[in-house]
């Protein structure tokens, strides 16, 4: 077990090192001075330039530069943005909560919708309900996020005027960004229109959340369906049926816990899909999150921000996949033995 965790950790460190190396290469290759690209300091004075050379060891060879680049970044020094001249680290902290908020709600919706439907399809295998679920998930999975978002804006926003189409909250509600999560911030505020503010925040959440939830929901559906169906066909289920256990007990006590393992491991792999769709969704709904920030940076050719965004997003995905791996191994002896056996 410990051996396995150490191996995973090594893999994590190595992957992140490669990621940093690629980003470092990108900064070298991009037009402009490396000192400017890496620090975001434009038109640096000679004194500042000397300091930058010192910090990033720009007078040494590329390997030293690479190491000091990693060193600065993991200590939270991401340089400053070209466009705002603010430390990028602070900007990340400002935009990250919005993205997390959106992703968490979308994941919740995806699980709440996808999980029962997937189970239903597995139970009703090869019956109309199964085909319905399969069909719906295929359609949902095939619809591009950007198209769905725009259509939703057109119809529910502009045509019916039911829902707001941009932002997180009507700006007339003065909410101090304490945590960065709108709903929590409203709760913490001492606003006199709290009830209205909640409704407004929810109204702003509906369309982006549902748009973002569609693809994960279809994936949850299909993964759950396959996993549960496999378990239901296993011999031990047949045995427990013949022993006269109630279907609910079979489902929730036996089949489902066993089906959870493949579901979780496959879902964690879908995190990158969720993040990329979140970026597109954020841009469409002007959601002030990391994705919107990153894509703005690309338009503005804000190299330090682009590199920081890459590091954060890719690093996050690597971290989560390693963590789920470790958690799965820790909870599933079956998998562990398979790995140990092969090594």
């Amino acid at each position, binding site marked *: 077990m410990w051996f396995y965790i150490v191996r995973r950790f090594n893999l994590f460190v190595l992957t992140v090192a490669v990621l940093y190396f690629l980003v470092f290469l990108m900064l070298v290759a991009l037009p402009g001075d490396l000192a400017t690209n890496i620090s975001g300091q434009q038109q640096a004075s000679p004194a500042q330039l000397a300091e930058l050379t010192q910090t990033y060891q720009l007078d040494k060879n590329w390997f030293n530069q690479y190491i000091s680049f990693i060193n600065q970044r993991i200590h939270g020094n991401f340089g400053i943005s070209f466009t705002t001249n603010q430390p990028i680290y602070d900007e990340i902290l400002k935009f990250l909560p919005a993205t997390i908020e959106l992703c968490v709600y979308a994941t919740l919706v995806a699980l709440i*919708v996808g999980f*029962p439907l997937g189970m239903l399809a597995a139970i009703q295998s090869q019956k109309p309900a199964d085909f319905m679920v399969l069909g719906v998930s295929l359609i949902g999975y095939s619809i591009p996020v950007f198209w769905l978002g725009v259509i939703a804006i057109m119809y529910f926003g*502009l045509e019916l005027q039911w829902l707001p189409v941009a932002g997180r909250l009507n*700006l007339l509600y*003065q909410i101090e960004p304490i945590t960065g999560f709108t709903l929590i911030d409203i709760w913490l505020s001492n606003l006199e229109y709290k009830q209205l*503010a909640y409704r407004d925040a*929810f109204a702003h959440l509906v369309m982006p959340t549902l748009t973002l939830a569609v693809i994960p929901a279809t994936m949850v559906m299909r993964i759950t369906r396959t996993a549960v169906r496999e378990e239901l066909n296993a011999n031990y289920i047949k045995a427990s049926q013949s022993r006269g256990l109630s279907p609910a007990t079979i489902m929730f006590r036996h089949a489902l816990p066993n089906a959870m393992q493949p579901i979780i491991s496959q879902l964690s792999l879908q995190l990158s899909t969720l993040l990329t769709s979140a970026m597109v969704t954020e841009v469409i709904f002007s959601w002030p999150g990391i994705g919107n920030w990153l894509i703005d940076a690309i338009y503005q050719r804000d190299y330090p921000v682009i590199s920081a965004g890459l590091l954060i997003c890719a690093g996050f995905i690597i971290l989560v996949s390693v963590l789920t791996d470790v958690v799965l191994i820790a909870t599933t002896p079956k998998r562990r033995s398979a790995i140990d056996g092969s090594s």
Partner: protein
Amino acid sequence: MYLMINSVKFFLKYSILPFFLFLAGCEPNHMDGERVAPGIVYCSEGDPTTFNPQLTTTGTTTDATSYQLYNRLVEYDPALGSIMPGLAHHWHINENGKIYTFYLRKEVPFHSNKIFTPTRHFNADDVLFSFNRIIDSQHPYNQVSGGTYPFFQSVGFSSLIEKIVKVHPHMITIHLKEKDSSFLANLAANFAVILSKEYGDQLLASQTPAKIDTMPIGTGPFYLDSYFQSNHIRYKPNKSYWGGAPTIEQLVFDITPKSTNRIAKLLTGDCDVSALPQSSELEILRRNLNLELQIQTGFNVSYFAFNLKKPPFDQPKVRQAIAHAINKRAIIEAVYYGSATEADSILPPLSWAYNDELTQYKYNPELSKQLLAEVGLGQGFEMDIWTSPVQRIYNPNAIKTAELLQGQLANIGVKVNIISYGWSVFLGKLNSYEYDSVLLGWTADNADPDNFFRPIFSCAALASGSNRTNWCSQELDQLFTKAISSTNQKDRTAVYHEVLEKLNVQLPLIPIAHALRFQVKNRSITGMPLNPYGGIAFAKSRRSASAGSRIGAQ
């Protein structure tokens, strides 16, 4: 198996359905007659670069500051076209036109903020402080926040004013070195705001002078509550405003750079008023009965300027050849969707100094090829056009304009490279004069024609960075001075006609179009006339009670 299905059904019923019902329950609230928190939201197109309009000429900054946070000595009334009292309730000019005496309003309080609470009302010291900051290079605030005052430098403010004298706490005199008929209009411009001396002194004592421009204190109808960069600016009404406190509870600038997003927010009610709708969106706006589209012939011009220090643009023939190769009609159709008029001089036809007898550069590629051949460039050449993707009042889409120019100039054998930067970077890089040509424009700050000449063509403007042709002539400068030293409109018109003719021959820049000015707002918002000279004012805006008119207007 039946039970199992039942349990799943049970699960469905009590988990998913309530969720959707719950969502549905909060859906339609938004557009109900019942209003969200009170106040007005304005969708603005960008971040202000500072909160002190003295330091800039960009419209976005003046929109967010001039009429919300500050007052001027005198104000310009666009409806009457005349100068009205501001912080000075009364003024007179002596016979030789060189001494202006202003009688200042009493009982005008300044704003307060976290770090400053005023102990006295506005008086002559504040006027001296505000103007001396600009004209006196020894003033402690002169170099704060960059030390450039582009508008004032372009109109030669510091060389014009001999001295400003405080006669008593509520009376000042301004002594000019020579007569300048545009002086009052310049004092009424968006940039000539009055700051608080007491605040300045306090900040100087605490060694944080730059805060005067980032944490503004003024006398205007609103005070700055909070500012989140690239997100929003929040203003609260100044309850003791001398002109009568605003009736709205708060004012929010929602910073929304994308035009389509502004329109969407306007349609869904997240915004009440929006800046700069794109010409392509006007049709949608006209169809919506909840919205009101205000149109105003703009005092602006978009132009294509050459860097006259860079060959081959130092030759007038080359510039004329390019002028003949440009199809302005096509640009107006494609970029402005017809909501602009072709410009044949820098001055819009509305202005009283407009010269309608200029020889026009008709679209004629053959002629321009011939002109190029005359100077030995018959085989064509390569050039750069610098531009920025940011939407401006005078040009909704400069990149598209540049692309059209690229196509049109290719017809005469000129290969064009388009170089674009974000707005702030763009303005910074322009000052190094490395470009061959640049697409820019100008929005007038007041009705005086002088505003189109000295800021764009004078030698003083070359130093302050608003003269983008990298060229100025003594002859023109003398004509400009001659024009402003007279108060007789007929004499001035004659001078300006001469100036326009000279510019038409020299052609340091090619005027392209005068754009119409638009503003969209919800019908329930009233008291917001559209100002042709830029600068939006919310002091008298109000939301009428019939907010319910939204229902049924679908």
